[in-house]
Each structure stands twice: as C-alpha cells, then as structure tokens.
C-alpha cells in the first residue's frame, strides 16, 4: 500500500461517498457549536422541517459573547442575551448537551473539548469557528466551518469536502529558555505569511514539536489558520495518551487500551510524501512579537520593524504602509520599550493552566506597572479552579491584574472586554487585525511570558530580561 500521511489516514477512514468531479461526503465524529455561528443553522433546520441527526455527537458551549466579570453582572446587551437564550432553546429542543454560562464545565469551546476528553486522536472535528484547528494537536482532523456547513452537519453529520494538500512543518532543535510554543507558531506565520498555507493541512513534526506538552501543541495547532491552513495536526504519542487518560469522555478500561492501540497507528508512514515542506530551527528562535495588522507581520522581539523597502511587491508595500499607519509604529525601529496600555492573557490560544503558570512565573512577587490594565482570563471553569487551587489567582491579584471568569473575552471584543481607540495591547490571543480587540485598538501578539513581562514594565519587554533577573 502507498505510504500515507497522518492527514490521509484520518481522511480516508471518514469518507462516506467519493465520486469523480464531486466533493467527498465526509463523516464528522464531533460537532462543537457555540452561540454566535449556530442560530441561523437551527433556523434552517426548522424551515426544512428536519432534526439533528446525531445530537449525541454534538456538544455546545457559550463563550464568545459571555461576560467575564463575575456572573452576577449582565450579558453585554439584549442582542447577546437573545443569542444565548436561543442556543439554550435549540439545545433543549434537539437534545444537545450544553455547557452553559456559569455551569461547572463551561469554557471556551477549544479549551473544553480537549479538557473533557471529547477531542480524541483520529476523530474528525468541526465547529463554526476557525480556531477549531486547535484539536489537531491530538491527531484529529479538525477545522472551522461556516454556518451553512453547521446546518449541513446538524442535518446529516457530514460535510461536502475537497481533499486538501499537505504541508509538513518540521521544527527541530531545542527551544531556548523564555521561548515557547506561541513563539514557534508566530515564527511560522512570519515565515510563510498569513495566506502561505492556504489549501493545505499542516502536519507539525520534529523534535521541538515532540518536546511540547499538549497545551503547547494546542497553541501551535490553534494558529494554523493564521497561516491560512485548513487544519493543523500532530501525530499522537505518549504525551497525548497521558493527557487524555482518565478524562470524562474517553474510553475506560479495556476500551481505553484498545483505543490507544488504534491511535498508535495514527502517524505518517515512512516515505509518505507531503505536497510542501517548511523547516524551522527551534534553537534559533527568540520570543516573537507582531508589529502589524495580521499575524504574519511578526518578528523576533529584539528585532526592528521592517522598512518599506523590505517588500518588493507594490501590494505588499501598500499593506505594510496601511498597517504602519494603523499601528502607528515606526518602520526600522525596535518595538522593545514601546509603551502599552493593556495586557491580555487568555483566549483559545493561551488560556490553559500551563499558560497561566507561565504568566504567574513572571508576575510572582512583582507588580503590574502603573496605568497598565492587565486581564487574566482562564479558558474554562476547570482551569480557573485549578489555578485557584495553586494560588495563581493570588499572584495575579497581588500583582494588580484582574482575575476574570472564563470566556473569549478581549480576543473578540463582543462581550464587554475591549480596547479603547488608540490603545496598545500586548495580547496572548491569535489575531492582531484592525479593531479585533476593540475598534481602533492596536494589538501586539506574543506569548504569555512576553505579555506578563510587558505588564510588569508597562512597555514591550523581552521576558528573558525578567526571567534571568
């Protein structure tokens, strides 16, 4: 048999029908839904008079528009309230399990999926959210879909899909102290650009990827979409199985052993070919930061913002100038020392316990600089409880940071947490698009270490400076 990549193996086992000149009918094992991209899909079902084919393979949460202030405080407005209520009604009517606002296991969709063990190797996982690529860290084929497709999956548990090409991103070498999974993925985005992996499913390989824990792997896969990729995947290994073992929704006993046996086969065969390949030397990376208005506009933190003549194409030059105008940073100058107004530690990229521990390691015994607003927003109630049991909440609060309820918060700015026009933020989230964190707000994307270090000094700061002192 022809050697296969991990992606091809998962794809092949989920093809229900494949005909020439037609997209394949691909079966979906897990459908995650949330309040923002599902209402119109349920309306579509009702208009057709059909139901949800597999409510048992559908899981709902509330995260995008939920407030992160203590839950006694109100949802941002009546529109958001109506949207949340609609998800509740839809889940009740169609028998879908809902992790609603304020309940024990509520949290960001891409945090609770793995946390509860819904996410498993070899599964096909979709959600009306582009950061669904996160779940690929477990060797699942996971990708974001639009609302029409949410309706398709609700109705048929299938999607019409064309097979993507494959891109190997090989990351070898040892990360230096102060350099994290977030820096690997920001380096990839800077290397290939925001559309560089369009049409491809990325498989991350190499010793630096193997050396990451599951949370780091999720951070990497999460931002695959920021390079334009359809999905990102990492072959499961002992690290994956150790993470999953004993979680709520994974098989137990003999079934667990059988599952692990199956999962071990989920790796790219020797001599299998990828359509494209990118190589990154992890040992040469330093903490990364973005300077512009898409995640591909990034650089090593000790570097300088490019000049106009760094770009050859007129369209690239125009995009660069537009970004410089919006960000109001100086071409050719460093970002280090740039004053920041807000630090945001959270989002489906960096809100897990390991991320919070990293931030706490910098903030412990230190204070947030005067005038800097620092938000720490755990990805789920489970993480919040874990952090509190370790005393991380005290470290954050003693430092002068705000310790919030779980949710997407300032990553998406549709829930009451947002930047004011003109403000600068160092953010652990995934997008620095114009206005993403609030109309007129300006975002520097970075790791939890860099964000926490910048909170302490009040300016863009290399975390290694604080870690070493």
């Amino acid at each position, binding site marked *: 048999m022809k050697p296969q990549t991990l992606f091809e193996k998962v794809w092949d086992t989920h093809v229900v029908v494949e005909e020439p000149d037609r997209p394949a009918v691909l079966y979906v094992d897990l459908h995650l839904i949330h309040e923002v991209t599902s209402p119109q899909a349920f309306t579509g079902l009702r208009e057709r008079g059909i139901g949800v084919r597999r409510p048992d393979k559908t899981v709902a949460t509330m995260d995008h528009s939920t407030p992160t202030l203590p839950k006694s405080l109100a949802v941002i407005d009546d*529109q958001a309230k*109506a949207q949340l209520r609609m998800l509740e009604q839809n889940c009740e009517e169609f028998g879908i399990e809902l992790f609603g606002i304020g309940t024990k296991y509520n949290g960001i969709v891409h945090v609770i999926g793995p946390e509860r063990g819904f996410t498993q190797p070899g599964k096909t996982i979709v959600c009306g959210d582009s950061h669904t690529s996160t779940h690929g860290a477990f060797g699942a084929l996971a990708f974001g879909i639009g609302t029409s497709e949410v309706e398709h999956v609700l109705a048929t548990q299938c999607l019409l899909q064309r097979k993507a090409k494959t891109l190997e991103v090989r990351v070898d070498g040892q990360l230096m102290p102060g350099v994290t999974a977030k820096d690997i993925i920001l380096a990839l985005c800077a290397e290939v650009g925001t559309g560089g992996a*369009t049409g491809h499913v990325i498989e991350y390989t190499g010793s630096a990827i193997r050396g990451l824990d599951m949370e780091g792997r999720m951070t990497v896969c999460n931002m695959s979409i920021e390079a334009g990729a359809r999905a990102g995947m990492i072959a499961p290994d002992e690290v994956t199985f150790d993470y999953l073992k004993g979680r709520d929704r994974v098989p137990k006993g003999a079934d667990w052993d059988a599952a692990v046996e199956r999962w071990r086969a989920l790796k790219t065969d020797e001599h299998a070919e990828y359509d494209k390949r990118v190589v990154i030397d992890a040992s040469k990376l330093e903490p990364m930061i973005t300077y512009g208005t898409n995640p591909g506009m990034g650089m090593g933190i000790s570097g300088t913002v490019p000049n106009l003549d760094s770009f050859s194409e007129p369209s690239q030059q125009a*995009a660069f100038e537009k970004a410089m105008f919006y960000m109001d940073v100086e071409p050719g100058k460093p970002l280090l020392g740039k004053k920041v107004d807000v630090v945001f530690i959270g989002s489906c990229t960096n809100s897990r316990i390991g991320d919070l521990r990293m931030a706490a390691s910098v903030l412990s015994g230190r204070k947030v600089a005067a005038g800097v607003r620092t938000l720490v927003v755990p990805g789920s109630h489970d993480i919040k409880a874990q952090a509190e049991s370790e005393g991380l909440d005290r470290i954050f609060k003693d430092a002068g940071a705000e310790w919030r309820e779980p949710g997407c918060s300032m990553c*998406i700015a549709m829930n009451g947490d947002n930047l004011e026009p003109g403000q600068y933020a160092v953010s652990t989230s995934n*997008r620095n*698009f114009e206005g993403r964190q609030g109309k007129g707000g300006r975002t520097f994307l970075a790791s939890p270490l860099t964000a926490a270090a910048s909170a302490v000094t009040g300016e863009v700061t290399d975390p290694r400076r604080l870690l070493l002192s």
Partner: protein
Amino acid sequence: MAKFTTLTSHCVPLTADNVDTDQIIPARFLKVTEKHGLGDSLFSDWRYDEDGSPKRDFVLNQPESQGAQILIAGHNFGSGSSREHAPWALVSWGFRAIIATGFADIFKSNALKNGLLPVEVTPDVHKKLMQAVQLDRGTKITIDLPTQSVTGLGSLEATFPIDAFSKHCLLNGIDQLGYLLSFDDQITKYEQQRT
C-alpha cells in the same frame, strides 16, 4: 440559493491585500440571530466615522460604487474568522462576485454557498482590471460562469477556475444541503459499519 449565470456590472476597487473577515464585518455585529440586514455593517470600521457618518474617501461610499455588483479586492481576501456573516454582508450590500488573486479557504467555501462567486485571476489580469476600473469607475466587466471567463476592457479575456460541483450548484441555484441529504442511506450504512 440564487442562480448565477452571467453578470455584467461596474465594480468597486478595494486595493488592500489580506482583507480579513473582521474588516468585512467586525465581531460586534455578530450578535444577530438572522442572516439578513448586515449590508449596512459591511466594512463598518473603514466606512463610518466615529459619529457614524460615512467617510467620503472610503471607496464603498463613493457615488460611483452605488449599484456595483462586483468587488475587485487584493490577494488572500477573506482571511481569518470563519464567520459566514462576511458573505452575508457582502451579498446584502449587493455584491454577486469578487475578483481577487486568491481567497482564504473558509471564506471561499462560505461565499459559494450564498451565490457569491469568488473569481480567482492571475496577478497580471488583476492588475489590468484594477487599473482600468480605478481610471474609469464606469468600466463594466462581464463574468460568465458557463465559460468561466472574465471579459471587458476591449480585448481582455481571462478565465478563472471553479470546481465542477460548485459551478453546477451556482448555475442551477442548487442548495448543497439538499444534495447532501440524498446520501442518507450511505450515511446510515457508514454509521452501522463503524459501530
């Protein structure tokens, strides 16, 4: 879904590359529970002043743009979020086709399900179209789906790719869910085999 065969229209030239879906429709407009009425929020942060009045220098607000059904955008249009609100907003404003040198995967898939045709052309053709339209905002371009061609500007004739299935659906106004539902038996069989 509305059928798409041939479209002749003047165009809106939007020169930026990597226009992400947060620009097409910012997240604060995603609290709706219907698909309709998003046209007023299209490109909201580029289009309106602080006080909500239209910015005169933004291309969508110019008198020459009114009634246009074709948007000529830069490379990698629709990157970022999977929000289908982006094509909903574009269609609601009146667009039926977008010409660019490349589209983000999820946006393209969403557009095709809403009768909005993504027309991918070479950088050379793109440059010619963009220049001509910027020079004369009255320039009309014809997009013909059956022949997968873009014509206008005298001798210019370019082709664009589209997969056979999406083309068939657009030409006949076929809704993809209806097609997917026809595989019910095979899906049931697949489910039985897997358990």
